[in-house]
Every structure is written in C-alpha cells, then in structure tokens.
C-alpha cells in the first residue's frame, strides 16, 4: 500500500542521486538532467512515487542520476516495462528516457503501442542522430548518406522523424525542445508532466564525441532565432530575430508558406495561429523541413483523451458488476460432483 506522507517541500537536491554521473564531459545529457531536476520538485509528487524507466544507450543511464525509483532495463523495451509498472500501480508517475536508437530502432514497436494505448507516462527521447554508446554508428534518425563507422560510404537509410512517428501512432502530447534550451526545456517538461496520457518530448541532444554540432544551426545563439519556430498556443506562427517572419496557410498547396515582413510580433492577420489541439496543424508543423523552414519547438500537439489507466479502471468497474464470487467460487465453477465419504 502506498503511504502518503506529508513532507517538507522537496528541492532539486532531494532528487539528485549520489551516483557519479558517467556521461562524457560536455555531453548534452547534462543539460537535460539539470532541467529535469528543476521540474521534479515542482510537481508535488512524493519522491517514492516517481519511477524512471530506461532501455539501453547513453540516455538510458539517466535513471541512475535521479534519486527516485528507477529501472534500467534492456534495449528498446522501456515502454513495455513501463506498461507493467503502471498496470501494477497506476498511481505512480512514470518517466521513460530513451534515445533515437533505443526508441525508434530496436524499440520502435513498443513506442508505437505506448502511444496508441495512451499510457500515462512521460517519454523523453534524446535525439542525437547517432549511436553513442556503441561508438558511432548511424541511427534511424541519421540523415541519408551519413558517413559513420558502420556506413563508410554513407548510409542508405532514409531517416525517421520522431515527431511525425509519434503523431502517426496517435500520441496525445507531442513536443520538442533541445538540451541547452534552459527555460524552454523546463517549460516543455513541465507541460509534459501535467499531461494525462503519453507525453512525448523529442529533445535534440548534442553528442560532441560522435556527431558534434548535429543541431548547431538550430541551437547556436547566432542562428537560433532564424531557425527556431517557438510555438505558443493561440499565438501566430512567427520566427526570426525581430519576429518579422511567419507562416501562413497556403490553400493552393495545402501547406504552411513563409511570409516575410509580417510586422512586429506577427500582427498580420493572414498568419496561421497555433492551436495545440489541432492534429492537422500538428502534421503541418511536423512536416516543415529544415533548413528551408525553421524547426518548430514547444508543444506541437496536446489533446485530452482517456488514458490506458482510465480504461483499466473502467474494466475494473465492469468486472465488479459481473463478479461471481471469490477464488473458492472460481475453483469449483463448472460442472462439479460430490464424492461422498465411504
């Protein structure tokens, strides 16, 4: 039974484990860890009710560094492990950490089913477009033609887009941020934490050892504003240093088209206004290809649907209505006969 204990307000320190953090110095994972540790105390969830579940890869070492319950499982299977955890105890706050290889290659199937079930878990996918822990092979998000240790002449595989994958599988919350985004990442994580259902966050993460500067144009300060489309619900889609560029719906091509010189903060009426609840708009945003278009950051899609746990609860009610007694009744169900004592 879960004991609810009134405790003093938790702080970041309470969530930092005593384990040595073993990522390479300078790894983008540090920034993500730090943002997560900022968010956790705010959620007012007792420490013992958090479970961090991961698969295999650099990102999947994450649970060791958070002082809650944690399960470092096997390659790609974290969503399946998390399903079991939630089936056993739906009250837990379960967070998954995965990577582009773990989540979209070996574990793609489980992630798909996690999304369609709308299991109430938070999925943080660290996308560095490379296999790091196995030392530099191409991943399912590596660009076509990418030269790596396992593709010396360039990869023949077209990349998968994590956001479009999540939307396609029916995820109810889809967002994107990046390792060094600071307040933006914290905001996105906070939103994810409060979403009921599977909350998917793609976090662009730099692996400076095997795929350095993969997102440089998006994340470096000089080009960030030109290349980032920061989404705000109910606000026009604008970007650029002066917020003077925007996106408008082009009915002729059924796509988002760039609009230049839109005036300060996109005051032009023709601009598309972000609506997180629109699955169609989410698809449009997810389809913007960089570098022709800026990269959408923030919450692309959020919708409230019954969670897997809600469905289980519904089954419980049904089961209680039709229950036919306890264990003993079950064992003697069917056609029985009594053999009398001689």
């Amino acid at each position, binding site marked *: 039974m*879960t004991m609810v*204990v009134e405790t003093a307000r938790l702080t970041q320190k309470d969530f930092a*484990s005593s*384990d040595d953090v073993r990522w390479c110095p300078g790894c983008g994972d540090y920034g993500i860890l730090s943002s997560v540790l900022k968010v956790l105390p705010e959620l007012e969830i*007792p*420490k*013992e*009710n*958090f*479970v*961090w579940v*991961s698969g*295999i890869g650099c990102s999947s070492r994450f*649970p*060791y560094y958070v*002082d*809650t*319950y*944690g*399960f*470092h*499982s*096997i390659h790609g*299977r974290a969503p*399946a*492990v998390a*399903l*079991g*955890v*939630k*089936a*056993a*105890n739906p*009250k*837990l706050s379960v967070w998954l950490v995965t990577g582009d290889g773990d989540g979209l290659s070996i574990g793609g*199937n*489980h992630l798909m*089913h996690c999304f369609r079930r709308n299991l109430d878990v938070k999925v943080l996918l660290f996308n560095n477009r490379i296999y790091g822990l196995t030392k530099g092979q191409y991943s399912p998000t590596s660009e076509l033609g990418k030269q790596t240790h396992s593709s010396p002449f360039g990869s023949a595989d077209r990349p998968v887009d994590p956001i479009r994958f999540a939307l396609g599988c029916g995820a109810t919350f889809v967002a994107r941020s990046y390792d060094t985004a600071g307040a933006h990442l914290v905001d996105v994580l906070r939103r994810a934490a409060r979403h009921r259902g599977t909350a998917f966050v793609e976090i662009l993460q730099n692996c400076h050892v095997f795929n350095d500067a993969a997102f440089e144009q998006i994340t470096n300060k000089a080009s960030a504003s030109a290349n980032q489309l920061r989404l705000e619900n109910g606000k026009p889609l604008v970007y650029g240093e002066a917020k003077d560029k925007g996106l408008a719906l082009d009915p002729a091509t059924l796509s988002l088209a760039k609009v230049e010189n839109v005036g300060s903060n996109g005051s032009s009426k023709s601009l598309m206004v972000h609506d997180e609840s629109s699955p169609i708009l989410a698809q449009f945003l997810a389809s913007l290809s960089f570098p022709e278009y800026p990269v959408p950051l923030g919450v692309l899609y959020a919708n409230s649907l019954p969670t897997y746990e809600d469905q*289980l609860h519904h*089954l*419980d009610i*049904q089961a*209680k209505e039709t*229950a*036919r007694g*306890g*264990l*003993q009744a*079950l*064992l*003697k*169900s*069917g*056609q*029985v*006969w*009594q*053999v*009398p*004592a001689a």
Partner: protein
Amino acid sequence: MQNESEVPSNKPEIVVNGAVIRFAGDSGDGVQLTGQRFTSAVALAGNDVATLPDFPSEIRAPAGTLYGVSGYQLQFASKDVFTPGDSLDVLVALNAAALQTNLSDLKPGGLLVVDSGALGAAQLKKAGYATNPLEDGSLSGYQVAAIDISTLTRKAVTPVGLSTKEAGRCKNFWTLGLIFSIYDRSLDTTLSFIAEQFKKKPQFAEGNSIALKAGYAFGTASELFHQRYRIAAAPRNPGLYRNIDGNTALSYGLIAGSVCAGRHLVLGAYPITPASAILQELSKHRHLGVTAIQAEDEIAAACLALGAAYAGAVGICCTSGPGMALKTEAIGLAVATELPMVIVDVQRAGPSTGLPTKPEQSDLYLAVHGRNGEAPVCVLAPATPAECFTVAYDAVRIAIRHMTPVIILSDAYLAHGAEPWLVPDVDQLPKFEQTALPPTELFTPMLRNDVTLARPWASPGTPGYEHRIGGLEKDYDTGQISVDPLNHERMVRTRAEKVARIADDMPECRIEVGASQGKLLVIGWGSTYGSIREAVAQLHAKGVSVGHLHLRGLCPFPRGLEAVMSAFGKILVAELNSGQLAQLLRAKFCLDIKSFTKIQGKPIRTDELMDRILKESEDYS
C-alpha cells in the same frame, strides 16, 4: 433420472473395467466438443478419465483431407487411469480421411463406428482409398458398424427447420448419443449443456438435442450392437470434483498464488498455440486482482510482466517455444534484477514453428540454459493436467520467496488433456512466506536473506526505499553498478547459489511406483508421467525389478535424487525430445544414463516403453 429417449434396453449388459475411445473426423466436425462432452459425462458418473485431444493447426482444413483430421481420445475406467490408452476399443470415424489415418490404432476385433454417408467416391479418393474399405474386406478384422450418420442426422433434425448444411453440423451430437447408448450413459448433463451453450440460438439447441436423442435411440434399437457395456465408478477420496484441463488448472494455480500472496497478478501475453487459453482464462478474472494484457509482441509481454514485478505485482507471462525464444533477454534481466516472475512455456514440437498443436518436451535446454551469461532460473514441470494447479501455485510461491524468475514447462498434451480434479480448499493451500523489508537505514537493493539469499522486494510507492536497479552488474553490498572483477564472480556465484537453495523448499524426490531399489530406474518429467507410471506398474506387477521416478523440479534438481538413482543398477530417462534431461543428468552426476526418446509430436505409448524396459532389464541380467 432417465430421459424419455433413454428407453430401457433389452440388450445384455457386460461389465468391463474401462475403455479407450477415439472420436475422429474433419476439423470442422465438432470432434473436440464431442470428446469433451463424453469426458464430462463419464467423469460426472464417477469414472476416472484421461484424455488426448489431437488436432491440426489449420482452423478448418479443406474438408476430407488427411491433414485436416481432428481426433479426441479418452480412456475411462472403474479404476485410476494415467494415460488416454495405447490402442482403441472403439474408433468413431466421421469421414474417410479419419478412417484412413486412425484405423491402425484400433485393436483387432475392436468396434469401428463409421459414417458410411461420408464415404462417397470423391471422399474416398481424397483420403487415398482406391476401393471402398466397407466393401473390399480390409475391415474384416474389426466389428464394423457402418451407419449413414449424415443422412440419419439430417432426417432427425429436419423438423426443426435447420438448413441441410446446419443439420449436417449436428452429426457430432448424434454420434455422441450413439456412444452414450453403447456405454449406458444418461443424456441429462449433455442436454443441459446444449441448452446452456446454444441458448441464444434455440434452433441449434433443439437440433442438437434431437440429434443426441436420435443417436441414442438408434444405438438402443439397432441390431448392429449386441450388448451394452457397464463401467462402474472409480473409487475416490471424498470431496468435490470437477474436470479440468492443464491450461485451466495452470491459470487457476497462478491466480490462487497471487490471491494467497495478497498481490495483484499482471499477465503479459501474446497469443500463441497452445498457450493462448491461459491468456483467455486469466482475462476473465479481473475481480480477483488479475490484469491480463495482450501485449504487442512476446518481448513486450515478458518485459511488462517484469515491470509489474518490479512494481510489486506477481508478474506472469505465458507462451510456447517461439515466444520463449524471444523472451530470453527479458528473463535474463529478471535474473539480473532478481525479481519474482513466472514464465509459462506450454511446449510444442519445434524447432521454429514446428508442429504448433503437437506436444514435445524439447524446450528443456532452453529453459535451463537458454540465456546469455550465467543466468540460472528455477524450472518446474507439472506431470498431469490437474497438477498444473499445484505447480503454478508453487511457482508463484517460490518466485516471491526466493526472488527469482521461475519457468513452468507444460506442453500441448497437458494443456488440452483433462482429468477429474479434487477441488482444493482455498484455506488449506500452503501459506506464503514473504520477507518483510529491512529498516530503511539498513536497506540496500542487494541486502540478502541469510537463508534463501533473496534480496528485498522494495516496490515503487514505498517511501524510504528509493533505489535504481537494472541489467548492469551490481555491487554485492551496495547494489550500485560495479565493474569490479571479483565482485562480478561473487555475484554470479551468489545468484546460482540462491537458485540452488530452492531445493530446500521443494519436496525430496521419491519413487512414484514400482521398486525403490533394484535393476532399473525409469526417470521422467512433465506429461510423460502417465505412460511411464503405467508401464512401470504393469511390469513391476509381473516381477520386473523397475521403479519410476518423476521430476517436478528440473532446476534445481530435488534433494535426494542422487541417493534414489544410486539404488538402481541402471537408469533410463524417457522423454519427448532427443534426450535433454538425460544429458543434464549425465552432466550433473557423471552417470551412464540410458535414454528413451520419441519426437513424433505424440505422447509415449505404454507398450513401446514396456518393450524398452524389458530389453534394458534383460541386458542387465
């Protein structure tokens, strides 16, 4: 109570000890249902009974084909029976293909009931007959009752208003009625079954009832059958009984285990023959704390069971060989994280897809050794359908007490075979010992119990026990990740010792039947129990120095095994594979062990094993 159709017969009644009957027909003929109803009726009348359903993996193979034949064999008697029988007293063949594929199992002089209405030229040709066996003298060694069952059934049920095709589907109940009349059985329980089963389709209920009664009346009146047979009730311990098949008993045992542990049961499963019935059964009992999840694949099924175990539930998965292969990595993680989990492997003939509906015991190596690294687990095997209950219950108990995955090796024969079962009293089930958590200040994830070496089961939601665990090697003392070489060796040896100590928690091995010392010891495991017991009992009664030992624990082996083996001059292991247990025993005990093997997707016959036992005994003397 006599049904109105059960008119008194003036045929002489002959008392016999038992009979072996096989119903055979097209896979769409309702043969399995016929066999199940006959089994239920004789069990309710107090006979002991053992069954052997045998069906193709095609759902409805093209009509009349040899590979589409479905069979259901049973032995019932006025004494204990342990096998469905070797050769048949009665064969019921509902089409030409069934006759072709089953006739060789009928005893000389045995009763052959054949549907002559299903022996048309085309059907005979499809079954490989050049001439009609009813006319060419090839059946002269049997007592043949050729009856146009198809036509008689249609005529009987026409008034109900069923179509010709629908009427034809009542012929299994007509046949059942006929056999009931020969063995002097009441129709009552079958009629109430039909009423219940077809209550939403009253026309079918009526049609099947009429067919059942018509078959019975035909058998009573027909001159084809000169006598009736009487098989008295078998002596039994008093109590409440029901029929149960292995998959149901196994499901009930798992539920009983979790209820008695006071924990939720979370099942992860992916449909696979012949284990799907466990998933379906467990899905019905949510009110008993059972959450059954049909996972996206076999790997997810194992992983979710393990995740549930981590979170404090009894984590279960059920599968068969191909699924077992896919689960190996997850079971290895269960070994590394030392979490309680039960994996049921309802074995079928392999490799790969193999013979999906046929039994084999060929996953023993896979269960005992089939993981990367040094990854010992507990492996148990039930011997009979009813024993699936106790073994499943025990698997849950051992998994929790010893904090280890436990594999149950059932097989297709146990899964579908049924027998009468003395319904246990829930209050009398063995109680569970669940170790309390240590005080938080002493807690580490690897703090072991002195007796069992089990680690504490601290689940998320429990304040003060927050910890991280996973597949990386852990420090013996702190439980934190460790790459220290000596620590790794210590952990490997400790995990092995933990599993070895489970033997202290299992009954010592004992002789089932026959000599407890002497010339030959026959060792078996799993579903071969009945055949081995029967063979040994018969020969021992004739003065052969032979005993039967049956292993329920395959890893670890039970205490006392070496002593029992050393009391015999020679050891023969009988199993449905190429000699896997024999090999494990040789490796463990360095003994010269003989092997009796069969890999045909069929159980061992008592007579073939008796021949081998005699040969081994003679060679010895």
